[in-house]
């Protein structure tokens, strides 16, 4: 494009309100504005596109939505009656009970975690941790944690009791996260752990501090 054509194209893009002097000053200040202007103007125009007509009842639809009861009014009318409140209260109490049993009482349901301390090489301590899980009916139980890069270490069925699986793992001093894997697919935290952390996927991992 010639300089005149570039100036003309830029004026079409920016608007007739731009004077010759302003266009020339702009091209001096922002010379890249003039390069490949035709292609850019076409792409810009394509983005702007034609405007389809608005439906004739647009205003009526806005007003209809405006006059519709709000979320709070709908919620109040539908849910805040006495029988529903009583039912919701009973449901909440039931849920709280389930949560309490499932979350806080869980440690009491498993065998205790036992740790045996021994002297390791170079005077360092080694902790033999006995992971144990009672899972009657399970075919396989494994433990995975950051101490074994979350690979599965199998627990063996124990003669101490029906459905009890155990394994002893030597660990160095430190804090570890872990979980049991039942039958290769179901991850569950250790009920005997002292504490648990969120695993980032909506489940909990157990934590052991040595």
């Amino acid at each position, binding site marked *: 494009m010639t300089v005149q054509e570039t100036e003309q194209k830029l004026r079409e893009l920016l608007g007739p309100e731009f004077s010759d002097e302003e266009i020339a000053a702009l091209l001096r200040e922002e010379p890249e504005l003039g390069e490949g202007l035709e292609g850019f103007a076409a792409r810009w125009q394509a983005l702007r596109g034609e405007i389809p007509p*608005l439906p004739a009842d*647009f*205003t009526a639809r806005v007003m209809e939505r405006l006059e519709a009861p709000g979320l709070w009014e709908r919620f109040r009318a539908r849910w805040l009656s006495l029988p529903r409140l009583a039912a919701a209260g009973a449901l909440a109490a039931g849920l709280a009970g389930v949560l309490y049993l499932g979350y806080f009482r869980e440690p009491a349901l498993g065998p205790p975690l036992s740790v045996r301390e021994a002297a390791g090489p170079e005077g360092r301590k080694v902790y033999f941790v006995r992971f144990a899980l009672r899972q009657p009916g399970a075919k396989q139980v494994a433990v995975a944690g950051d101490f074994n890069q979350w690979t599965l270490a199998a627990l063996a069925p124990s003669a101490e009791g029906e459905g009890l699986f155990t394994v002893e793992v030597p660990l160095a001093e430190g804090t570890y996260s872990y979980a049991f894997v039942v039958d290769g697919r179901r991850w569950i935290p250790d009920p005997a752990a002292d504490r648990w952390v969120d695993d980032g996927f909506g489940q909990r991992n157990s934590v052991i501090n040595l």
Partner: protein
Amino acid sequence: MNRKQSPSQDPDLEALRRCRQGDRRAFAEIVDRHKQGVFRLVYRWLGQKERAEELAQEVFLKAYRELDRFRGDAKFSTWIYQIALNACRDDWRSRRRRPEARVEPEFLNAQPAPEDSPEAGMIAASEGEALRRALDGLPQIYREALLLRYFGDLSYEEMAERSGEGISNLKMRVARGLAQLRRRLERHL
């Protein structure tokens, strides 16, 4: 250079006064007066008629809910355009976070040039996405100037009237905004 107008000078202010007194029909007058401009802006940003209609409705509903926040320092049309611009950007950003829900603009998919092929349509659609991304990344003063000028189809005089800024200032913002937009596009296309 913001200037307050009395209700008798500005039909929007008069309608707003009635609206605040509980006259909902007054708000219908406001919707009637601004629906084309808001829809044009929203449609050009989204490129999808049905979604643009829905979003334009939401713009007016939000304006109604927040009427008390409008103090009359700027023109009502400036205020509602600002709500529309924010709604467009929020909508676009939320669709970017959910790519499976994203639908490419109708007018970009319908572009036949340069060759009428599926590949040409895809290129046009990705250019549209790149343009939106480049626009979204511009400093606010440039982004708003470009959107009002090109998506809202406002003249510089109308922009000045609505924003209270001088015409030469707005012209410079549009020109510099376009220059920045091109630089950003060259990096992404």
